[in-house]
């Protein structure tokens, strides 16, 4: 910390060096350097007192302690898994944490290689040959995929088709992103927690250029007919986009084999704590869309000595070169989160990731069975295989959720008669407690 008593502690200047610099510039004081007309000048009075580092840390610790201490059984597209300590440790190395975008690749090989490895992991997990090095979150990745469809579509269709049960955050973000294009958004229904194939077939026509399906679905059901959904899209020359997450992709059949043209979703399910909704948007697609991909790509190449080297590539797609003709406006992305996710995947390895994913199925199945044994509780509500989470039928969902909250548990309320519960490695140890709380609350 600077020894100076006022001003920013993060500027290294002493009074002497400041005076020397002012003299070199030819002014008496810093204020003279500001070329701001009096009419719009401000006096600097915000009424914010400076605090010491210790005070700020203490104040915020107190602030966050005002959050209720609840065990969360919450998911619906955003997940907490245990993040290994090594991920925190290595990703916090300042050479990663305080670096900028790799505009000078010769001096940023470390981060570029890590991002190249992240892309490679997503290629393996999705089965698609191109993955970018991050979107903001699953919602913006889905929306960017729709805009990609608009650029590459081979039909005159202008309708983006998404499930009725799509989360509001995804749907509303999608609506905003396509508002400036010629696209419009429409929905198709679910039946028993998954795509209603007959209704989808009826709905898809020449007007549709993009079909989006999730696996697992928003209520955790594993989609058994994903390839058929892909066929329906392909038969109408619509782009087929699959939403998933990085853990589910470790176990479930890779979306490319179901005909996915694009895969989007949440990659921060590994590497990132729940972080109050902060995410990492996963984006992968077929090779033929390479030059239409939004966001940044890292490529391998060679340096002047003939050694392999990495660099940001195909930048002529990007806003700093193409301006209004860019494939997206994204500049700052989620690179550091992608680094953490790559580290977490590398920590798990193939068998570790497959095991974690398998536990997501087993834990959901076991918890559902325990809850279903209770009088007045139906779980899972949908007769499906489930990944991490499932809907639960109860008589009075808001009252049950309130009762669970009093006992220290947070679950989703979907409607008056439906809750949703999500179990991962983080809260699996609290499973019996949740079931006991359910029993108390639903006991009439």
């Amino acid at each position, binding site marked *: 910390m600077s020894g100076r008593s006022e001003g920013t502690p993060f500027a290294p200047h002493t009074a002497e060096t400041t005076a020397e610099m002012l003299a070199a510039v030819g002014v008496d004081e810093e204020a003279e350097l500001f070329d701001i007309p009096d009419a719009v000048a401000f006096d600097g009075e915000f009424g914010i007192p400076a605090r010491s580092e210790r005070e700020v840390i203490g104040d915020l610790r107190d602030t966050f302690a005002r959050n209720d201490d609840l065990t969360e059984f919450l998911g619906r597209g955003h997940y907490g898994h245990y993040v290994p300590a090594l991920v925190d440790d290595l990703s916090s190395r300042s050479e990663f944490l305080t670096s900028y975008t790799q505009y000078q690749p010769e001096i940023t090989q470390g981060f570029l*290689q890590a991002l190249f490895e992240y892309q490679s992991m997503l290629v393996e997990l999705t089965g698609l040959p191109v993955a970018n090095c991050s979107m903001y979150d699953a919602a913006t990745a889905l929306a960017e995929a729709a805009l990609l469809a608009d650029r590459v579509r081979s039909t005159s269709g202008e309708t983006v088709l998404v499930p009725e049960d799509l989360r509001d955050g995804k749907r509303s973000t999608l609506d905003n992103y396509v508002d*400036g294009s010629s696209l419009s958004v429409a929905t198709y229904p679910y039946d028993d927690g998954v795509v209603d194939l007959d209704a989808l077939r009826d709905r898809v026509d020449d007007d549709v250029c993009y079909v989006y399906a999730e696996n697992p679905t928003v209520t955790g059901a594993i989609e058994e007919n994903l390839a058929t959904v892909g066929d329906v899209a392909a038969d109408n020359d619509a782009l087929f986009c699959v939403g998933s997450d990085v853990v589910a992709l470790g176990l479930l059949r890779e979306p490319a084999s179901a005909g996915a043209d694009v895969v989007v979703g949440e990659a921060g399910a590994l590497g990132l704590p729940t972080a109050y909704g902060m995410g990492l948007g996963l984006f992968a697609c077929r090779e033929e869309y390479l030059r239409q991909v939004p966001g940044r790509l890292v490529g391998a190449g060679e340096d002047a000595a003939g050694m392999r080297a990495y660099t940001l590539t195909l930048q002529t797609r990007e806003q700093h070169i193409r301006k209004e003709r860019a494939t997206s406006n994204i500049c700052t992305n989620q690179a550091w989160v992608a680094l953490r996710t790559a580290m977490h995947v590398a920590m798990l390895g193939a068998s570790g990731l497959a095991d974690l994913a398998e536990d997501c199925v087993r834990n959901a199945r076991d918890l559902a069975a325990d809850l279903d044994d209770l009088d007045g509780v139906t779980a899972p509500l949908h007769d499906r295989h489930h990944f991490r989470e499932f809907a639960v039928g109860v008589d009075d969902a808001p009252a049950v959720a309130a009762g669970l909250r009093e006992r220290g548990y947070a679950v989703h309320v979907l409607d008056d008669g439906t809750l949703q519960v999500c179990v991962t490695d983080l809260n699996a140890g609290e499973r019996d407690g949740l079931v006991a709380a359910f029993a108390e609350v639903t006991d009439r």
Partner: protein
Amino acid sequence: MNYDQARYGDDERYEPLLSEKDGKEVDPGEGSVLPDDLTRDSLELPELSEPELARHYTRLSQMNWSVEAGPYPLGSCTMKYNPSFTDVVAADPNAAVHPDRDPATVQGNLELLHGLQGYLADIGGMDAVTLQPPAGAAGEFAGITVAKAYHEANGDDRSEVIVPASAHGTNFATAAMAGYDVVELPSDEDGRVDVEALEAAVSEDTAALMLTNPNTVGLFERDIEEIATVVHDAGGLLYYDGANLNALLGRARPGDMGFDIMHYNVHKTFATPHGGGGPGAGPVGVTGELAEFLPRPQVREAPDGDGYELFDPERSVGKVHGFLGNWLVLVRAYAYIHRLGDQGLLDASAKAVLNANYLAERVEFDVPYGPFHHEFAATSGDRDAADVAKRMLDYGVHPPTTKWPEMVPEAMLTEPTEAESKSSLDDLAAAFNAAAADSVEELETAPSKTTARRIDQADAARNPRLSWQALGESPDDS
């Protein structure tokens, strides 16, 4: 200063590459409770021990420049030192809650969001702020979406957004993404907005002018009141790109200058390590008449005075992120503002501007325009700015932004920020000046002391190899 960056790639045994060599293939479907047709047949990922991974990533980190290694004077990117205490605050486990928690159970988080909304509104001279956009460009999109909703609500069909030629590429891309035609505005000979050209450009089609002030060569748009009048008289809105707000902290507020909408790059102006490309956060501030259009939800004090609640603005545009945005970045920004207070904010802009002007004095390349705020664009004249930049790497500094903005030929846009000491600035100037004195051949063959030598970007783009799976397909790969 001389410099040698770490390199581990010369010896095959130490090549720190993950899965290309170290992959293990498993069949995730084997033994699964799921039927075989739902599970994948194979998964191949790196399978290394924890010590091997620790070494892998440590070596990668050593082959990477960072602001804690040295100056990072990328113009318009504001790469300042990031104090470590914000990492401690952001790592508080009590703050890492799920976004679907009932607002009544996360009052601490809502209190912070409410406080940050207020600080940012004060600092920007705005009436209401949303914290949802997850980056500056996402903030631009949210802001332009609000502008569009405002015009539409007034039954006003406007089709154009005006952007100065020197603006960030994101401004153009954002306006196009929102469905607007982009009208590019030339600069005048002083490097500022040409008010006559602006008068000619505005019309009943003008939805907004997107402006950065100080602009991208560090010049304050002194005619800002006149600019605002021209735009407002045409029925358009004035949008402030917050990329350069660091130069103005406590000295001028976009709201007072007549801006209706702005975004804050809180990861630049306040504090968040840039993490090799993100995450950032791009909160958006608006004047009162636009507040009802902000993305939902917003945070406010509960009417009964008991804590905080979420609410949806009456005519909200909806959402621009799945949840509430990049929370951990917002936490850091709040902590940083608390740490600095009024005097710290004022001093940050004072030292940032002093540093830019001092460095501009010391650099022997021509520096057109002036007087400067926090950044300046030197020109390397008959030398290629990109070559000069590569040579600067050998002198142990990160070079400035090059070849942009286009209004300065062979631009080297330099922004030292307040974080650099006088001696660090002297080193930076020495690197500039040494490169200026080097032969063209030395420039063209640089760098030689970094992990990689000059990379063939054209080849990398012509033959895209974007994953380790693609490396095997390359005929060049041995």
